[in-house]
């Protein structure tokens, strides 16, 4: 019995190098496979959550994300709605009649700052391919 166990242990140990090689060589496939795991999605607190509405205004494609209230054990009462402007306008933009958290608002933004009627701005960042505006909301 001890001998069988011993042989089994040596075989298992020999598989170590192979496992490492297979993991690295097939990294692309393993990564794709891991995406099927139920927890493999970035928390909405960072990703902004799912896009619930898309509108086109003044030739700008606007994506409105779901309401996000951060928290793991319990949600915070203070949250945000993320709005992506999927181009990088050179100067001022104005987006009228957006329905955010059951309120109609108008957002205006310049490369320096963003404003929204009836909402405080939580974050405003300009990326190479889009602007991200986060509006504060409460439960």
């Amino acid at each position, binding site marked *: 019995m001890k001998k069988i166990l011993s042989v089994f242990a040596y075989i298992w140990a020999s598989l170590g190098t192979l496992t490492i090689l297979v*993991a690295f060589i097939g990294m692309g496939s393993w*990564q794709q496979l891991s995406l099927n795991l139920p927890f493999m999605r970035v928390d909405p607190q960072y990703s902004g959550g799912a896009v619930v509405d898309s509108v086109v205004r003044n030739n700008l494609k606007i994506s409105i994300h779901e309401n996000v209230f951060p928290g793991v054990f319990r949600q915070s009462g203070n949250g945000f709605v993320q709005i992506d402007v999927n181009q990088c306008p050179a100067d001022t933009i104005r987006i009228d009649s957006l329905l955010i958290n059951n309120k109609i608002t108008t957002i205006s933004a310049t490369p320096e700052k963003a404003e929204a009627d009836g909402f405080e701005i939580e974050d405003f960042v300009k990326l190479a391919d889009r602007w991200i505006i986060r509006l504060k909301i409460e439960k």
Partner: protein
Amino acid sequence: MNRKSNYWGTGRIGKSILLFAPMMMLIMLMLLGSASGGDAATQIARLITIAFFGAMFFLIIYTGKTDKWRAVAFIVSALLFCIAFIHNLILERGSMTFSNAEELSCTIPFCHIVTTMMIIPAAVKQTILFPGSLVEGFASISAMFVIVLCFSIVLGRGFCSWGCFYGGWDDGTSRILRKPVIKKVNNSYKWFSFAMLIVMALWSAEAAEPTYCSWLCPFKAVTENERIVDTITLIKNIIFTLTFAVLVVVLPLLTKKRIQCATFCPMGALLSLFNKINIFEVKNDTSKCIGCGKCEKACPMLAIEKRCPTLTCSKCGKCVDACPTGAMRFHIKGTPIDKHTTIARTLFIFPAYTFLVTLCGGSVANGLALIINLFI
């Protein structure tokens, strides 16, 4: 008993080459397989990297000393990794600091230590509470997930002495002085890292942010840190610098122990748990032990108690090198302790070294290329 006779190949060129040849092929496969082209500096750097990793492996086999040459490869990997990492950040975003823009675009590189803070959100909310990319880019979440899972199963906490691109820092500083200034460090301090693991996991879930990364990580000082825009970010950066200075530089220097890794890093604690299911271990053949205590004195991870390595052993081999009778040895669980020492050591060193080369080899070559470029 002559401890050198423990390992087949020790002191014998022919036998050493036989063990070295397959590893050299793996090193070349790993470092040349994925890379092609590049300027002269890149190609020279790649060749030097191959020669360097090959030489260190040969010396491990030929001299029978595991830790001595492993440490050289490990420390050089950590230093060059950070150089290559920072350079990469500067190329991609123009700075080694990050701001809201990187957070909101989810492009922060995911490091393995973050895993400890992801466990509870992943279980409770089924999300990854980190502003990283799932697949794309450098150090994506899925790539790190595969690396952490596979390698902790194969190596257990061997990860911390054979692959972690941070561990080389305090491994390095703990070797600068010949003798420790602080002679005795209580071994039980190692359990503090388990407290850190529990606290960081709970605090991160409660605060809904990776708190160790946001507030404590010593390695922010040498990789990527938050842009100073207000008092909070200033305080964070002061903390990062202090934890690095105290835990990675000063205390390891004075104690000759890897204080950061042994007592503070929550990932180290998590990886220690993988030692339980890992097939490899470092074990004392008590029939050969004369109780000199050299192993315990040598162990940088505070892992040896009553002459026996415990859960937190990182399989660095320092105690094996230090043992005058050859009692301390690499061992495969379920096999006799007094037989086949060479097989056990070889079967461990192969995956461990392959891991080091595959994880850090590319960064070492890139870091080296940057340095070469400074001179030509």
